[in-house]
Each structure stands twice: as C-alpha cells, then as structure tokens.
C-alpha cells in the first residue's frame, strides 16, 4: 500500500494492509503537525507532492527494506493539502516475523522518505509563510 492522499490518514487502514498470519510484529510510525517549529508558532501546514514520482520512490524504499531485513509487508501513506496541528502527515506500517526487523525497517522508511520522496511542506505562521527544506529543518 503506497499512497498520496488529500484525506485524513487512518493508521488502522495501514495496519490492516500489512497484517499477515506469519507476522509477529507490526511497527507503525505517524508524523504529525507540531505547533512550534524553530521558535515560531505554526498556524497550519500545506503539503504538496509530485505524486507520479513519489509513489515509485516509496516502492523503491520498500525494495531497499526487503534487501536489508526480513519483513512481510510495508505500507506508506503521505497526506497532501492543508493540515492542522495534531493531524498526521505521514504514516508507515511494517510487518515482520519479529519486532527487531519491523522496528528497524520502519525507522529506515521514514528516514529515506525524507531524503528521496518528492513531497514538500509549507509552514504558515502568524506572520508569514515559507517552504521548508532539510537545510532549514534542524530536526529533519
């Protein structure tokens, strides 16, 4: 399951998508909109994606994961459009026979997503707005 959506993300959907009877672990990750960033108060975020390229890049990340760990299924969903504070911008679920593979693969997936998947975020503050890239993202 690899999707770009303009609808709210339902984490349960990803968990169901990766559930396998052979899997003893499902690791999940949710990225959510935070109110404070670099000392400024965020009103909301706007996400934009190059969908036709983003989905293949998500699949590549899944292929990389399969080359590194024994996992069963991988699901990645990224939301686009306007997001309010507390809403999920990205969700990842990985199922595996054992927890260590699932957790490691899930962490790898979000790190790689931020490097290779063409999705952009604009922060809208009380006094301005800016497209945010890794260079200006201290926690990226």
């Amino acid at each position, binding site marked *: 399951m690899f999707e770009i959506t303009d609808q709210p993300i339902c984490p349960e959907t990803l968990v169901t998508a990766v559930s396998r009877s052979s899997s003893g672990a499902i690791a999940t990750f949710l990225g959510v909109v935070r109110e404070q960033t670099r000392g400024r108060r965020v009103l909301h975020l706007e*996400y934009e994606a190059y969908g036709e*390229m983003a989905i293949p890049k998500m699949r590549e990340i899944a292929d990389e994961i399969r080359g590194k760990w024994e996992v069963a299924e991988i699901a990645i969903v990224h939301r686009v459009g306007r997001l309010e504070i507390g809403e999920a911008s990205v969700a990842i679920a990985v199922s595996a026979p054992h927890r260590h593979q699932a957790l490691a693969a899930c962490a790898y997936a979000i790190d790689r997503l931020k490097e290779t998947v*063409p999705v952009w975020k604009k922060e809208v503050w009380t006094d301005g707005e800016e*497209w945010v890239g890794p260079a200006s993202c201290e926690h990226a």
Partner: protein
Amino acid sequence: MRVRVRCFAAAREIVGAGELIVELPEGSTLNQLLEQIRGRFPKLDRLSGSLLLSVNREYAPGERKLAAEDEVALIPPVSGGADV
C-alpha cells in the same frame, strides 16, 4: 524539441505555474534547460544550490541529454514526513 517541465513548491511559486512547455535545440542537456528557465525566472537562483532535477520521474544529473517529450521536474529540497 519540446520538453514538459513540472514545477513544485517554491519553484512553482517563483515560476507562477505548475508546468512549463520549453522549446530546446535537439541534444540539449538538463543544465542547458535549467539555464534557459533561470533566464526567464531569475528568482530561481535562490534555490539553485539545492534544486534537484528529475527526468521522467527519476533523479538525473545536469549532464543528462534530453529527448523530445521528456518530463522534467524542478525539485526543491524535499521535506516530507514530519520534523521528528
């Protein structure tokens, strides 16, 4: 030859459109395309150090030769996910 150039995020706002159709001499490279676009939209220089390019939905180096109908994209630094 004609190539289609998709523009995203900060690049889209500078260009003022999500897409450009650019006419280029046969055998032109990505760098030559970018040069031409920058001539039209000098503010793109603000992104130049960090701007990545893709051809047909795959990241590509500036020396890449273009063909007619290629889909190029101007890709400012990506920032998907969340600051976590």
